[in-house]
């Protein structure tokens, strides 16, 4: 069966768009950590600075020992961090403060690494 030439670019564009939306089918995270608490409230943050496994691990470790956080899941390429937490122990603004705290560098100076662009 003969087909027109324009079918190639059209098919290509259609499949690329399909690929773009198919990303929702892959929900595996970059990191996923449970902290052993039971709070179930959910907070999704777009975090500037979470961009690979290394930064996602560092980000998650900042919440080690923080009371009220049950789990953190990150998707680095989307810059998304999803928290489950106990609102009676910690609130959204306190979580934002921890995210945006300055981080002490080896040379003694400190710098803010992460910023919370959006909270949902």
């Amino acid at each position, binding site marked *: 069966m003969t087909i027109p*030439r324009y079918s*190639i*670019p059209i098919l290509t564009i259609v499949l*690329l768009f399909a690929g773009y939306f198919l990303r929702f089918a892959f*929900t595996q995270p*970059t990191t996923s950590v449970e902290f052993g608490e039971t709070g179930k409230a959910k907070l999704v943050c777009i975090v500037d600075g979470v961009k690979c496994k290394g930064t996602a691990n560092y980000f998650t470790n900042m919440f080690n020992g923080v009371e009220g956080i049950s789990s953190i899941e990150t998707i680095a390429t989307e810059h998304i961090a999803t928290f489950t937490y106990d609102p009676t122990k910690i609130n959204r603004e306190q979580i934002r403060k921890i995210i945006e705290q300055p981080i002490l560098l080896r040379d003694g100076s400190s710098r803010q690494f992460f910023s919370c662009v959006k909270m949902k």
Partner: protein
Amino acid sequence: MKTRVLRYSMLTVVLGLTTYLALGFGKRSFEAYCPFGGMESLWGLFREGQFSCATGPLNLSMLVAVIILALIAKKAFCGWVCPIGFLSELIGRLGLKIIPRNTKLNPKLNDRLKLIRYVGLILALYFTYRTGELILRGYDPFYIIFSGFGHGTLGLVTIIVFTITIIGSFLIPMFFCRYLCPLGATIDPFSRLGLIKIARDEELCIDCGDCQAACPHDIAPHEMIYVRHRDCTNCLECIDACPEKDCLTLKVKL
């Protein structure tokens, strides 16, 4: 309209969008859209159920889309989308303009050299899976160019590899795609099965060879009835070059 005008327009848009992302304007990094990132993420997903390094869902979904596209229209991704294929083609054409010559390699040597891309694919995946790092960043022109020799490149090693790639592309059309690209190697088996292919009408063909001369991958449509070659990108340059109307057409054929 010549198909090339349409194809180059599409490639220019993709190149522009990639540059836009590389300059930090987009929501994601330019790397997030690379289908090969999907390959690099497979082991981490299999072992830990998590994406490794800087790979993510979009890399994987793009890989799936490119494979489905290859099963339908061969390496159309390479001919119509990939910015590195586009830059390689432009550099190759510039090389031919500056030093007009016959770029045809001995077919046997050409085929043997193409095996390097499979070795590259195996090595890239082996070291990525072993270290959990995107080891290819130091050698991959896509990353080197759009990150501006950024984090993960290897100084002098990267400079040497990149220079060889540029000089190679200048001397041999589609040098990187033919011999080095691990994504091209990944798509190969699917492209071989691709449904939509160039078909030649033997009755109309005058055996002038213009189709092969126009093909960026040095495929010889005039020696075939259907172009099943795994390297065919359905760029349609051969159809544009053929002097005989309707001699070369696009057909759906198993």
